[in-house]
């Protein structure tokens, strides 16, 4: 049975996939209060690729986690279509992640005991309209390494498995947290190409965080974050081809 979100996707009614207003997040660590986010407004549009740029500790990961339903804001409002995520309970957030969001992490976070195909299957088994794991892996150029365990893959390959895992459920939102952070530039390019291709071919709204300014060129929109606030937003008229990116 198709979920309400997928029905909406088919009708293509909204151009704004996700809207966040006045997001704040405060962590308490012992006696110290850390204001990770302070009144952030953010939206993610259909088919868009957004790069969130900022130094480490600027709050970009916190924002990504809240967008992805991994964390909840201290105050503010966040909506995915007609779902209010800021007031969602644990079960609703779980369903949101399960049906609509794909994650790619800096350290891949593959399950070492599962092969590439099985790592992807871990997600497709609980998604309503998944791609075939092999198809997802082909999409990131790993069609020939399906049955390798993470330990048998290079860092770039592992990250591409992670991307395949994230997109295999055909999510509306793909969130990538420093996907190239642990990779050299040549391997990083391969990974970014995979993300770009998914965004282009599947139309997945993608948010990618990095502290690497060179990556900003691939985005439709670049959001600069510092000290928990959005400093400025730039719009690229043309996305720069990935192979031209250098760092």
């Amino acid at each position, binding site marked *: 049975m198709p979920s309400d979100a997928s029905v909406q996707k088919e009708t293509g009614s909204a151009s704004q996939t996700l809207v966040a207003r006045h997001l704040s997040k405060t962590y308490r660590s012992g006696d110290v209060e850390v204001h990770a986010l302070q009144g952030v407004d953010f939206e993610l549009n259909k088919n868009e690729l957004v790069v969130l740029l900022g130094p480490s500790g600027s709050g970009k*990961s916190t924002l990504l*986690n809240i967008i*992805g339903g*991994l*964390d*909840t804001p201290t105050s503010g409002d966040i909506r995915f279509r007609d779902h209010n995520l800021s007031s969602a309970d*644990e*079960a609703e957030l*779980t*369903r*949101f*992640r*399960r*049906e609509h*969001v794909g*994650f790619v*992490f800096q*350290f891949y*976070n593959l*399950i*070492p*005991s*599962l092969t590439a195909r*099985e*790592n992807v*299957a*871990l*997600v497709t*088994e*609980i*998604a309503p309209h998944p791609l075939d794991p092999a198809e997802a892996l082909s999409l990131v150029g790993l069609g020939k390494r399906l049955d390798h365990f993470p*330990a048998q893959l290079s860092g770039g390959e592992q990250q591409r498995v992670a991307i395949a895992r994230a997109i295999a459920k055909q999510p509306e939102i793909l969130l990538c947290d420093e996907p190239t952070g642990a990779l050299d530039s040549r391997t990083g390019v391969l990974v970014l190409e995979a993300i770009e291709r998914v965004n282009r071919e599947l139309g997945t709204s993608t948010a990618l965080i990095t502290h690497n300014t060179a990556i900003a060129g691939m985005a439709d929109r670049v959001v600069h974050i510092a000290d928990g606030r959005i400093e400025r937003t730039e719009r690229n008229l043309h996305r720069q081809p990935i192979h031209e990116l250098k760092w």
Partner: protein
Amino acid sequence: MTTLDRKLWRELWHLRGQALAVAVVIASGVAMLVMSMSTVEALDDTTRAYYQRNRFGDVFAFAVRAPETVARRIAELPGVQSVDVRIGKYATLDIDGLAEPVIGRLQSIPEDGQPPLNRLTLRSGRWLEPGRRDEVIINEPFAEAHGMVEGAQFSALINGHYRRLTVVGTALSPEFVYALGPGALMPDDKRFGIVWMSRQALESAYDLEGAFNDLSVSLLRGAAVDAVLRDIDTLLEPYGGFRAVARADQLSNWFVMNEIAQQRTMSTILPTIFLAVAAFLTYMVLTRLIATERSEIGLLKAFGYTHWEISWHYMKLVLVIAVAGILLGSVLGAMFGLDNTRRYADFFRFPLLIYRPSANAFLLAALVSVATTVAGAVGAVRRAASLPPAEAMRPPQPVIYRHTDSGRRQLLALVDQPTRIALRQIGRWPLRAFFTVAGISMSVALLVVGLQWSDMIDEMAERYFFDAQRQHAMIGLSEAQAMTALQDFKHLPGVIAAEPLRFVSADFHVGTRRHRGAINGVPADTVLQPIHDEATGHDLPVPQDGLAMATRLAQKLDVGVGDMVWVDIQQGQRPSVQLPVTTLFETMIAMPAVMDLQALNRLLKERPSLEYANLLIDKRAEGELFRALKSMPGIGAVMIKQAALDSFHDTIGEQMLIYTGIFAMFAGALGFGVVYNSARIALSERGRELATLRVLGFTRGEISYILLAEVGLLIVAALPLGCLAGRGLTLMIAHLFDTELFRIPATVQPSTYGMAVLLTLLATVTSIALVRRRVDQLDLIRVLKTRE
């Protein structure tokens, strides 16, 4: 199979060492329970089947000489199904080559075949041949103890005349499962035997033609046992009838039932402790194991796996381990149970063995194990899954180590850096350190409990045979004799002192409380069988009038010093009197009531007489004394203390050795499970840290030290605590084991503590060596590069 399940199996395989250690812990608890419970069941079933097959009587009675006509009247009593009248007498046997006299129970059987009740199971040879009055069948253990086979001959002093008897067969009887000689505490197959002879032979030897002195009755289903007992007592009274007893009070059966009851107590207490400890350990280990899976749990949550799906995943992991433990434990438990039962069956000489353990023990053990492991997993999974996924995926924040106060800082300054790391680790996780210490302590405690059985047996024997009884031998007379008979004993070669003694059957009652027992009559100035109070270790004076009573008997009757007790004497003229309780004393074995011999004789309205003589013997003249005793008429029993002590040790000692061996093995497995898992989990938690240190130039030995010093320090702390806990458990078990027959002393010898500590250290060294191997194989680059 879903991908998550595939992950489960692969991870299980990866964790096989730890999983196996946890499974072994669970298996130990399960095996103990299954072994004990199935043994009890098997003993129950076997006894019941044996009794039924051999038509074991429901009621037993004795008389001096009752005519056959009385038997017919007994047969007509309501509730009585059938009656078997016999002749039973004690006689001194003279076995060739054996110095000391042997006592035989001569029991009549029909010449032409099995008696209607209490049938024999012929083990070898044949039945008596009609008319051959000197043919006998003897009980199998007695035959084996003396190497007697068909055709063997021995002499018996029957009614004052020596008779040469020929063995034609060996047999077993439900009546003499526990073949206990008069006055003996333990069966001694060398010095007491059952001799079945033809009824006619015994009739003529004892002048009992047309009469009987021993009777067994079977009852119809639902018969009123007490009424039948009363009626039989009434019918036999004119013929010197001795109190009729129901099967429950029949000597052999009483001991068998007592033994089964003890085994039942054992099957409740020990496995309960064991399973509780195993559950505790499982909980501890799984909690830590799952805590290390924290980031994977976060990841699964990020993918949208629900709380329940994640919990169920880890639940399956622990269930697989639990099921493996249960299966292993069940198999081991059944194996040891069968073995245990077999040893009991050998001990009791059951001619058959039924070992069909019901599902109860297995189900109970499985249920408890599953419940505790799942409880452990639920707690751990809930903790991990309750974190927001973003946080769960980050490595845990570096924990805050505080500077300790100046005194402790100075102390820490004394030790080197690696030791400091170990100490800080313990200080930082006090609860975890506590659980590890508690786990190891419990396995030490269980070892102490297991190993102290032999201390306890030694102590019990020591106190009963030496502190409470000072005679070397006790001679039973076939019937009460005048006091002058004592002089005959005093004049026997090698006798230093002789004292008279009487046991008189009596019912004690106060209100509705009742006890069927006996009064021991001892001389006022007794030296050889004093009233020995175990509580104080002192001898108490024999009361002039009134009863000295074992505290347990007083408790059973709910009386104290100064209270009056009704005593129905069951012998002679059967007087009923009220006697005051004047003294209370603690005993190790049985619950006697003692009074002055002269007062007892007065009570019986009989001339001063004795039934037993306690002798103090000059060891050098033992041989001569035995020869003299062999030819002395009127002797019904000879109990030699050293022999009794030896047989006590032989029978109980062997049983105990095997049981404690099994117990120690399981307790050792427990210890191994805790230490191995503690070290393994510490390794997986601190792999990065250790690898970093290796990169910084620490040697393998040094990082092993950091990891294992922590475990080692905890073990050092756990050993004395474990000994203390073992002592506590011993006291508890001694308290719970208190039966009418035994009160066990809670004794633990220093060597037992030493052994428990040694075995624990052995288990520790083994598990640490296994972990050390892993530390040596630590892949530096990979550990540092990847974030697991």
